[in-house]
């Protein structure tokens, strides 16, 4: 019987299938862990005197509470807040006590967990990947089944390398057309969320398909899959192809020699078969898609850069969101003054994202009164960006060039948007208070964010591209 990509990966990992009485036991190939969602899970292991069953399948780093101010390591930089200091030292102790290799503050391989997994080649097609972090969906860009879990389930995976799971449904997202100049993967995924809604994917695993996806590099595909959770989806997946295989070739944790050949043969079969049945399907045409920006307090409240903010039509939740954002219906966002611009996060902090932003900033200045942070997703990306001189472009433009980490996406490390200030951010969530108490967030692509930094107002990046 023809199968979907999801079904192939799911069935390949069933220790025991589900029955009406019991969920399936699903084997996990890669467990990513970070400092925020694991301390209580390790405490449980200690309480029950259990070891970590497969430290070799566990990849550990610290990214949320870690400072990004320049310095050789965070030994030289103050960690913000006593509890963050404790959380970081607890992570170091937990990894040491349980025999897990930690990519610590002195590691050249450290960075945001969803950036370094792929970068190290640990993320591979056909794997099951989990993390106590909802943006684990990012890794689905490689044809892995990757999803976020809570801390109790982190404990289950640490202790057994397995999870109890009911089989989710499938939703095919067919994307026709090609993206135009100045329009990126971020605009595409924001448009999809706008179309299906912030709960449009609930209980489903999404598979993104079509010409626009095939044309994308891995960085862009990760941006798309990263935000699957913002549509409520369990996971997002893209079938592996030459682009995927070429990306992984030679990465430190990718298979080698004969193992590589057999892995690639196996990966090539990870496509949805002709005639495979999905529980639901949706079509999106991107041929005329322009840059997208959010205007409200969830990623589904999104419009084209030149479109007017819609009317609330008496909907109190909608009105509450506009009140929080201090925005009024009927006008586009392009008049709105910007205080802070953030380029970074597991959504948009990879080399091509930084190149997109640098292309706009080259030879230009960040507008007076605007604070701009550029935070690479990993130390490797930082090094690659510096090797091609991107740091010099950002600094010359008046932007701050930082060490890697989650930074202002979640504001746990001291990098926050001040109360009431407006931020144009390449991150994934414009929730109330997400970037700091009272912070107002507009989500956008790196190109749009950079154009807005230069303009001092939310800006359509396309005229900048024509001038360049």
């Amino acid at each position, binding site marked *: 019987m023809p199968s979907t990509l999801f079904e192939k990966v799911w069935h390949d990992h069933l220790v025991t299938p589900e029955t009406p009485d019991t969920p399936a*036991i699903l*084997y996990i190939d890669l467990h990513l862990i970070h400092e925020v*969602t694991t301390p*209580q899970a390790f405490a449980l292991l200690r309480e029950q005197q259990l070891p970590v069953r497969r430290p070799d399948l566990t990849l550990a780093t610290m990214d949320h509470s870690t400072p990004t101010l320049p310095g050789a390591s965070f030994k030289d930089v103050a960690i913000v807040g006593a509890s963050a200091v404790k959380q970081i030292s607890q992570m170091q102790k937990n990894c040491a006590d349980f025999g897990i290799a930690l990519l610590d503050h002195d590691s050249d391989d450290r960075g945001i967990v969803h950036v370094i997994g792929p970068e190290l080649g640990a993320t591979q097609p056909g794997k099951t990947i989990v993390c106590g972090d909802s943006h684990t969906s990012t890794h689905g860009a490689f044809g892995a089944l990757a999803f*976020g879990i809570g801390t109790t389930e982190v404990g289950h995976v640490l202790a057994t390398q397995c999870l109890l799971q009911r089989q989710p449904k499938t939703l095919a997202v067919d994307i026709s057309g090609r993206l135009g100049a100045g329009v990126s993967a971020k605009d595409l995924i924001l448009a999809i969320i706008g179309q299906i809604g*912030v709960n449009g994917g609930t209980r489903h695993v999404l598979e993104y398909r079509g010409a626009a996806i095939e044309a994308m590099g891995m960085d862009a595909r990760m941006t798309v899959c990263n935000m699957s959770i913002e549509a409520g989806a369990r996971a997002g997946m893209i079938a592996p192809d030459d682009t995927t295989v070429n990306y992984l070739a030679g990465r430190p944790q990718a298979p080698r020699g004969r193992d590589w050949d057999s892995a690639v043969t196996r990966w090539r079969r990870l496509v949805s078969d002709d005639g495979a049945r999905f529980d639901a399907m949706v079509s999106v045409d991107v041929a005329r898609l322009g840059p997208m920006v959010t205007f409200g307090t969830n990623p589904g409240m999104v419009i084209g850069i030149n479109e007017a903010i819609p009317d609330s039509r008496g909907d109190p939740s909608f009105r*509450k969101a506009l009140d929080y954002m201090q925005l009024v219906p009927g006008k586009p966002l392009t008049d709105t003054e910007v205080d802070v611009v953030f380029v970074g996060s597991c959504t948009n902090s990879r080399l091509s994202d930084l190149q997109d932003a640098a292309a706009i900033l080259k030879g230009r200045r960040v507008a007076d009164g605007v604070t701009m942070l550029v935070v690479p997703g990993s130390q490797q990306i930082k090094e690659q960006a510096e090797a091609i001189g991107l740091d010099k472009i950002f600094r010359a433009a008046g932007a701050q060039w930082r060490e890697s980490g989650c930074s202002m996406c979640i504001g*746990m490390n001291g990098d926050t948007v001040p109360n009431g200030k407006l931020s144009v951010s390449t991150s994934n*969530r414009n929730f109330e208070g997400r970037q700091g*108490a009272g912070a107002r967030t507009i989500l956008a692509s790196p190109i749009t964010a950079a154009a807005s930094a230069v303009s001092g107002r939310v800006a359509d990046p396309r005229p900048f591209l024509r001038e360049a």
Partner: protein
Amino acid sequence: MQPITRIRSTTVVLPTRDIDTDQIIPARFLTATSREGFGVQLFHDLRFNKDGSPNPGFALNQPAAAGCAVLVAGNNFGCGSSREHAIWALLDYGIRAVVSTEIADIFRNNGLKNGLISIVVDTQTHQWLLDNPGTEVEIDIARTTLRFAGDKTVAFQLDDFARYCLVGGIDQLGFLRQRMPDIENFEQNRSWTP
């Protein structure tokens, strides 16, 4: 986990749609390393003014909300981040069940691991509950029913295994560990290794 068979309580109502876990517990409180004490930070930025005083307009600050164990919320409650701290904060505060027309997957799943139950009801029942804050409801876990408005009863969906664990106070990690022979067998017999 303590067995849970029945929850009887008056309701507190938050009608806003898409209340995300950042609103349930803001990220700046997530540097804590234990599960305890998150109740004081529950809905922090909605519940308290900038000067730290309680916001009298927020539902949880109404006198009638004191002691309520059932939260009736707008559609798509608990969306966003996977933080289990959201569940710990609700439980620590005293909320034991959330009722809505849609509840986000990870939130619902995290809740069941801790004894917080997500109940999805039809729009008509939901609307009645939104319109009648402070009403008494009774949730029967074994029968998966919600009684409201005196004598009205609706059934809700609850995974059989989750129900078995809740009613029996069964620890899911214990269940998984009993299946260790199956897990070892899977590892030894798979066609490729990660």
